[in-house]
């Protein structure tokens, strides 16, 4: 137990002091992006891993979050925080709108609804030129400020994103270990049984969509200010696929898996830049090997390791 506390303190100190050591702006940028993707993956794990509803349209919520908050800041001059709350509310509504047709569906049909949603959002952004500036995208998205500090540099953003990742992880962890999380698991394992035990199945399924949408929306809101620009090209089907890969490679039935998946795939895709043209070929191969040989993702691997260290009788 003591060893664990020490590990936790060491991990906390490392994350807090990391930007003081890592001064390379590029590395910080990658870290920040990975943090933003972690938020999306956290929501996706609650939806796909816990509830078992696969979504290949998370980029749609991500895009909606970015554009709603960026447009509010640009056109109405509201603060970053107000814009973020508006984006989260809008995304929650989108989640409900998709959750309603999705509650009757499973498997490929559900996948298609989520893909369709992601594409609709992207196409609306692309074509609604008077508001969204179309393919040219938005530029000069205002920077956030907190307690009188303006968040400007990569390092400032590191702490802002760290705050949200910690908050998001905490909320997801509490959710997962509450009645809600157990109900989500029950829905995945046997929907009919859950229904007959008196669980309001549809309410929980729609709620899972809304929660994952809020995570992606908040991530989008941060992303807009962080990147300063946004265009429909940032939110394609391939991005949705990328989020799903992060979720599965990390291990989609745990909260820690979301953190691991987002960071590892993000760094992997950067590290593979050395291979230039073959970067994504190797990336694809690694994905395939992971899902064949590590079906529960990295989190599953950790579980196996832990069980080996602690033989039967000691939980």
């Amino acid at each position, binding site marked *: 137990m003591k060893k664990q506390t020490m590990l936790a303190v060491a991990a906390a100190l490392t994350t807090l002091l990391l930007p003081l050591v890592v001064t390379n702006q590029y590395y910080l940028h990658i870290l920040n992006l990975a943090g933003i993707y972690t938020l999306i993956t956290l929501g996706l794990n609650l939806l*796909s891993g816990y509830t078992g509803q*696969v979504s290949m349209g998370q980029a749609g919520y991500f895009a909606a979050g970015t554009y709603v908050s960026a447009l509010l800041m640009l056109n109405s001059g509201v603060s970053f925080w107000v814009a973020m709350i508006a984006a989260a509310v809008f995304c929650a509504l989108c989640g409900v709108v*998709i959750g*309603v*047709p999705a509650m*009757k*569906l*499973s*498997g*490929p*049909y559900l*996948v*298609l*609804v989520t*893909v*369709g*949603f992601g*594409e*609709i959002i992207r*196409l*609306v952004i*692309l*074509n609604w030129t008077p508001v969204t500036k179309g393919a040219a995208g938005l530029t000069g998205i205002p920077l956030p400020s907190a307690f009188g500090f303006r968040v400007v540099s990569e390092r400032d953003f590191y702490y802002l994103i760290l705050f949200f990742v910690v908050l998001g992880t905490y909320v997801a962890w509490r959710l997962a270990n509450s009645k809600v999380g157990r109900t989500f698991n029950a829905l995945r394992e046997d929907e009919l049984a859950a229904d007959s035990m008196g669980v309001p199945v549809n309410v929980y399924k729609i709620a899972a969509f809304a929660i994952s949408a809020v995570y992606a929306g908040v991530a989008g809101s941060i992303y807009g200010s962080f990147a300063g620009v946004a265009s429909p090209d940032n939110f394609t*089907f*391939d991005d949705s*696929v990328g989020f*799903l*890969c992060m979720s*599965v*490679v990390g291990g*989609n039935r745990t909260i820690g898996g979301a953190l691991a998946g987002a960071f590892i795939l993000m760094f992997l895709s950067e590290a593979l830049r050395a291979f230039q*043209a*073959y*970067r*994504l*070929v190797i*990336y*694809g*191969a690694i*994905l*395939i090997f992971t*899902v*064949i040989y590590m*079906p529960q993702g990295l989190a599953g691997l950790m579980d196996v390791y832990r069980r080996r260290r602690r033989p039967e009788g000691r939980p």
Partner: protein
Amino acid sequence: MQYFLNGLPLGAIYAIVALSYSLIYASSGVLNWSQGDMVMLGAYLGFTVVQLLHLGFTPALFISMAVVAAVGVAVQYFILRPLRERQSPPINVVIATLGVAIMARNIALAIWGPDAQNFPSPVSPAPIQIGVLSITRQDILIVVIGILLMLVLHLLLHRSREGKALRAVAQDRYAAVLMGIDTGRSDAVAFATSAALGAAAGILVAPIFFVTFNMGAGLGLKGFVAAVIGGLGNIPGAIAGGFFLGVLESVTGGQISSGYRDAITYALLILVLWLRPSGLFIRKNRQKV
């Protein structure tokens, strides 16, 4: 009416791609996301055969179908068979086929480069006028070859030994195993046939679109949409769904808005799935899909 006519060749392409999705889904329950990239590989291989070996359109079609069929079998044998043996969750299978798609796309990018290639049409580009309507020879060729392919597939499925085995596995995999059918073999047949269909679609569509390394993404998605409209795993449904989608796109693109065309398609699709979860053309199956 002109829009309806324009939608037919596109519909034939979608129908072929939708067939390839449905065939694999029916026989092995796999949602194969690399199907669109088989279309792309087919187009590139056909292009290479025409350019380097100076062969005609027909040999290019057959060579490319054969090679891509082999790729399909390799994907089945090296990736989906181990996944099935480990009883992996469906989401892992989806990710694996997405991995194949990413690999195929980037291998093509590495070999053929990022530039769009112009695939020469085997027929003259001059359109044929029928009254007020016009149609190009390439469009007619697509529809004719498309329908021929569907007929051949029908004969294969109903007359050949492998086809019958495939249909038995699609109906009840467990019972088929008990009857002594080699499901590994029938899976390979399904993947080979689907990949070959994809390659044919790629060569047919190549003269109207340019050949690019990411052409498979859009076509694959549309083929999947068509397959779902017709009821995934349903062979006649896939054909109907393909033509329906082609015509729908052509009409909405021409009459309402070309920018919002795909958005309208997807919105309609979500509506269809909400109201009729088992596809537009199935009546009986009322159970949850």
